């Protein structure tokens, strides 16, 4: 029996399931044009509607990307404040981003094609 509650659960879980797979590539994409201060990076991602529910959960993600070697971090002195951590894309990260971009376009077109028929 597929009741209304089950449908509601599926709908509620949908954004987070969609997000889970693509969020890390959005981080890489934001670093495409050069290194960025961690806080600015997190704030920019957080400002995109529907992409992030809690800005704080991005820090574990950033940490994972660093471990995977797709981003690199540097500490820089800031004027009148504590040192700031900057994130930059590594060559490996650039390669991953390129692959994702191609895959995403195919995937998006395929889903759009199915939804519109």
């Amino acid at each position, binding site marked *: 029996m597929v009741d209304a509650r089950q449908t509601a659960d599926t709908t509620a879980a949908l954004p987070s399931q969609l997000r889970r797979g693509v969020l890390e590539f959005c981080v890489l994409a934001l670093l495409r044009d050069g290194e960025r201060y961690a806080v600015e990076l997190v704030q920019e991602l957080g400002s995109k509607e529907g992409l992030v529910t*809690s800005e704080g*959960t991005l820090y574990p*993600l950033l940490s994972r990307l660093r471990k995977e070697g797709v981003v690199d971090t540097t500490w820089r002195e800031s004027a009148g404040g504590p040192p700031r951590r900057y994130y930059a894309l590594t060559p490996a990260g650039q390669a991953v981003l390129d692959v994702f971009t191609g895959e995403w376009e195919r995937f998006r077109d395929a889903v759009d094609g199915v939804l519109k028929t």
Partner: protein
Amino acid sequence: MSATRNRHIEEYLDDLRAATRDLPRRRRDELVADIEEHITATVPFGATDADVLTALDRIGDPDQIAAAERERLGIVPTTPGWLEWLTIPLLLVGALIIPLVGWLVGVIFLWLSRCWSVRDKVIGTLVVPGGLAGALLLPLYPVSVQTCSSGTKTSPSGRTVSFQHCTGGQSTVATIAWITLELALIVAPVATAVYLTRRARALR
């Protein structure tokens, strides 16, 4: 910086530290430092309570952040189950039911559990080995170590005198020390049991 910091921020960071307690130390310190830096950078100095709370809302629930980090590290969420609820009574009174073995099983369960940190486990093991049985190892009442000898002996003048000679015995200091030790052996395992219960529960 921290002296003038908003109390909501302090509370938030305390909650975050509590929520991430079961994470490896370095990861936890790094995560808390990241979030602290984020707050410092995004909440202007002297912001109103409302502004601070809005900023903290955006950062999100500490439990959610901790869950994201656990997921990243592949740590299974630690929900206390039957193992944990058996461990605590076994440590406390296990040795009273089956001498030594009962407590040892409790120690094995304690170290098998993913609910407690290594520090918690060391405390659970060392305070106090045997649990409440330790208190029973001390005699229920101090046995007098007083030794007396009595008899008769002949004095140089030829008269027979009886004598009693005693050595040792319970001094006041020794009695107080004994009572203190006995109390400590009762209070310490109980305190450990309460501590382990609270630590397990806090992670739920």
